[in-house]
């Protein structure tokens, strides 16, 4: 039975992608902590993971004529547009900025631990595979 590496790694591979995207969004919030009218954003993890797991997750090719292949494009990026949401601010601010540095720091720490957990899962799966290959 051939082994499909994508299914073997399970949801962890997609989770890692979403978590690295979330890290980016949170870094963005922290960089814009003093920008007037900047609205803090975050990724809805459940929606993002569902999008990443669906077959149409990759951006489709544009077809201009019938008969062309509209297959999934090999894109490095991940479509998370549906999962990217504005954060509901806890307290209003005079300059219209909705970044709460403490909240963002907490979210960043949370995301870091989750990322590391996903890495551990992936690593153990790869080790299992190596054991199977070397047969020791």
């Amino acid at each position: 039975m051939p082994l499909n590496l994508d299914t073997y790694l399970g949801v962890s591979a997609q989770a890692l992608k979403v978590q690295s995207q979330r890290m980016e969004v949170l870094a963005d919030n922290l960089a814009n902590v003093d920008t007037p009218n900047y609205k803090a954003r975050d990724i809805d993890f459940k929606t993002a993971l569902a999008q990443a797991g669906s077959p149409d997750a990759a951006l489709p090719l544009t077809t201009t004529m019938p008969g062309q292949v509209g297959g999934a494009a090999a894109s490095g990026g991940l479509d998370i547009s549906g999962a990217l949401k504005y954060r509901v601010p806890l307290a209003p601010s005079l300059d219209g900025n909705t970044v709460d540095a403490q909240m963002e720091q907490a979210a960043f720490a949370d995301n870091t631990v989750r990322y590391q957990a996903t890495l551990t899962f992936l690593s153990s799966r790869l080790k299992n595979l190596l054991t199977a290959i070397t047969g020791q």
Partner: protein
Amino acid sequence: MSSFKIFDIAGSGLSAQSVRLNTVASNLANADSVSGDPNTVYKARHPVFEAVKNAVAAQTLGGTPGLGAADSAVRVRGIVESTAAPSERYEPGNPLANADGNVYSPNVNVIEEMTDMISASRAYQNNVEVMNTSKELLLATLKLGS
């Protein structure tokens, strides 16, 4: 790999906050630079930050403008001079005093500048931490499976 964008984002934050620290230093250094003319006296300077959205990404993803792009950064849009009136002081002995014996001191609020400095340095440290954490995670990802 897209995670390298974090270094651009956090780096832009570092650069913006260091501009802010520079203006604070300039304002504090010039807090006592008096002048005989209220128009030429030093005015407190403050940077205005602006979020840089990756317009291309927003368009490709078809999301709400500004929301669709996962990556953006911060930049200093410009430096504005405070419009508060400089304080007038009667000091006839000062060589810079005008005909009425008045000198004008800059509209720098030292307390405001100090709090601004602390805020800027905390934001800078935050960005450094983001960079360090991302670096560690990337290195851990590279070591995957070993």
